[in-house]
């Protein structure tokens, strides 16, 4: 069928089952927006900044498992989107971003709103395309979706010059696709899996180390089954919260820089690490030479480049987590769970010795209380997004995450300003769920314009601003490591958050007590409007435990005198 390049874009999105596109128009992408106006196959959400469009598509993808789609114009539209691409890239989120480009004849002339989008995005996309002819457009769009969602997922950019969206061509959307140079391996080597299973049977102190790949692979049920059958204790990374379920007796907690005592000690003393979709990030390992130093390592990952990158691996298994865990379960039919009993008892004692805890107060609200309270009231029902900083770590430590895709945060890149737009995307993808963005007084201002988007489209996300009038995490480091020289971290000067939310069509609450918090949350849920809950918390509260940067995982600061 003959149609314009712009129509092809819309038809391809519809063929891919896309329901929501987040974007922002501009000169070079106008032909596509003209077609969006005429079609009714998908909805378009107009964010108020391109970065927010990409984060919203990202939050949509993380919460639903579908490919997120964002659309931006050339030049500044694209450069604004780069942080969103990098955020998704670092956390392996499936996404397709379509950008306009100046016409082919102007490329290379420093034309108005021209920038080398494929050049800039090369290191922060899984793959990218500059479309050079309308003939190749349908194939490229098909490839983009396929690459984004297959193998180790990631964002793909399709940069389309304006003349190509105007040009007519033959549209036939490919049904099947095969890229001879790209063949992800899902299966996992049978012999390696067998050897890994034998190692598990021989181990005395094995430990499941679960990463974000377990979420991406939808492997939660299988991993819970593996833990139950073997009774091997588990630790989760920041990206894996929810995989085991908060109530699971085998879950020790989160490990790493702000992991709990039992998790970090378990990793320090284990004799067999069973890594499922984790990548040994520096925030997890601490000092590498001390990390799991008594252990052999089984590493299951769909990306061969992750295996052996930081830690020497004894049992490398390249494959999809679900597929491999399924095979491991079969190979562990005769596992003797008594072998690990002594180990479980040691770890239980560690947890009793230093449980994840905090000192509550009657005078001032504690951020940990706020998070636990949200957990008590909403539990598994809510989707929790976050920005980056202390509030993110408190949320990861204290919220009772019960299922995967319930916890949405920028782990790898650590992008402040991610939370609110990601919450919009998550709510759009899960209209029946309550979506709470746990944020800070620093982060929330980095995409605060999205209040307007939320109001316009009636996307009632609740932003719980844990307000300590500080750039809290940097302040904490300054307290611990910079002799309390609070260089540029005092955020005492701030907007009236309640009025700000109201000015943008939402509702606001100032909260200073537990009773006020409960009342505000109840009303926020009832009102179904975008909401700011400005929660005044203890100014100098620290995130603990903490492994100082570059230190060994077992050397945790468990308390601090300024607490």
């Amino acid at each position, binding site marked *: 069928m003959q149609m314009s390049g712009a129509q092809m874009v819309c038809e391809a999105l519809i063929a891919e089952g896309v329901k929501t596109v987040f974007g922002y128009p501009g000169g070079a992408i106008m032909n596509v927006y003209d077609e969006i106006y005429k079609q009714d196959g998908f909805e378009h959400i107009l964010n108020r900044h391109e970065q927010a469009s990409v984060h919203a598509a990202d939050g949509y993808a993380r919460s639903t498992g579908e490919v997120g789609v964002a659309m931006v114009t050339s030049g500044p539209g694209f450069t604004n989107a780069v942080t969103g691409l990098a955020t998704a890239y670092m956390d392996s989120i499936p996404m397709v971003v379509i950008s306009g480009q100046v016409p082919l004849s102007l490329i290379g002339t420093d034309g108005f709103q021209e920038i080398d989008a*494929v*050049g800039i995005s*090369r*290191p922060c996309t*899984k*793959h990218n395309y*500059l479309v*050079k002819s309308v003939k190749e457009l349908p194939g490229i769009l098909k490839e983009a979706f396929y*690459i984004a969602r297959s193998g180790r997922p990631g964002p793909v950019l399709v940069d389309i010059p304006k003349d190509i969206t105007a040009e007519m061509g033959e549209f036939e959307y490919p049904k099947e696709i095969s*890229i*001879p*140079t*790209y063949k992800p391996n899902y299966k996992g080597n049978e012999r390696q899996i067998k050897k890994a299973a034998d190692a598990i049977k021989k181990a005395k102190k094995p430990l499941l180390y679960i990463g974000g790949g377990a979420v991406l692979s939808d492997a939660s049920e299988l991993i819970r089954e593996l833990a139950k059958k073997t009774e091997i204790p588990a630790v989760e990374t920041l990206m894996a919260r929810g995989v085991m379920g908060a109530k699971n007796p085998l879950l020790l907690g989160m490990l790493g820089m702000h992991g709990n005592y039992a998790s970090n000690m378990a990793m320090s003393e284990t004799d067999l690490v069973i890594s499922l979709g984790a990548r040994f990030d520096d925030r997890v390992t601490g000092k590498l030479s001390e990390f799991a130093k008594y252990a052999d390592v089984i590493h299951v990952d769909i*990306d*061969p*480049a992750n295996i*052996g*990158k930081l830690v020497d691996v004894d049992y490398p298994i390249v494959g999809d987590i679900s597929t491999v865990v399924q095979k491991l379960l079969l190979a562990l039919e005769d596992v003797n769970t008594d072998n690990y009993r002594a180990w479980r008892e040691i770890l239980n004692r560690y947890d009793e010795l230093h449980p994840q805890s905090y000192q509550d107060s009657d005078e001032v609200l504690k951020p940990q209380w706020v998070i636990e309270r949200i957990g008590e009231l909403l539990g598994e029902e809510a989707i929790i997004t976050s920005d980056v900083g202390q509030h993110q770590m408190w949320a990861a430590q204290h919220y009772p995450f019960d299922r995967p895709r319930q916890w949405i945060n920028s782990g790898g890149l650590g992008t402040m300003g991610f939370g609110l737009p990601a919450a919009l995307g998550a709510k759009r993808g899960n209209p029946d769920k309550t979506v709470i963005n746990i944020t800070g007084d620093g982060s929330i201002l980095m995409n605060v314009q999205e209040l307007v988007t939320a109001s316009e489209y009636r996307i009632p996300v609740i932003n719980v601003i844990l307000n300590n009038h500080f750039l809290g995490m940097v302040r904490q480091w300054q307290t611990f490591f910079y002799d309390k020289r609070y260089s540029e971290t005092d955020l005492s000067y701030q907007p009236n958050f309640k009025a700000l939310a109201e000015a943008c069509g939402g509702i606001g609450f100032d909260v200073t007590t537990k009773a006020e918090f409960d009342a505000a949350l109840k009303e926020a849920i009832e009102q179904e409007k975008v909401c700011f809950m400005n929660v005044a918390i203890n100014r100098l509260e620290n995130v603990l435990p903490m492994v100082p940067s570059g230190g060994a995982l077992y050397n945790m600061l468990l308390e601090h005198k300024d607490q």
Partner: protein
Amino acid sequence: MQKVRRVISVIVMNESSVLARVTSLFAGRGYNIDSLTVAPIPGSELSHITIVTKGSNKVIEQIIKQLHKLIPTLKVIEHEEMVEKEMVLIKFPIDENLSDIAALCSAYNGGIVNVGVDMVIAMASDEPVRIRHFIEAAQRYSPCEVVRGGVVAIER
């Protein structure tokens, strides 16, 4: 950690920006490129890139895996047993001893390939180590310009 020299052949789709993908991977991850050559493989849609690099065994392993991860990469070949060749062009003043230069070149599979009014151009092609020797030996004839071609390699 001990750095080793490695010759890596990368077979890629011959499409636009594929070379940029390869080189920006090296730049972005802090890997070295000692030399790089690229040309299409006749009768196919593929190109052959030959990269000479240095790094610890761990780094070399990462380079190979990261190269493999690029979508347009079909194959990454890294082998201890490669036949390596390199070519070099050198410009000499015409008043140097041309018969000595010609004799030197022929010892390195080359010869004088162009004679101009003021200059002669000599060529040699040999193993990379020998090319280095050839360039050293050529110094006594006051070379004005030396252009090395970079290593090409093929599995034995």
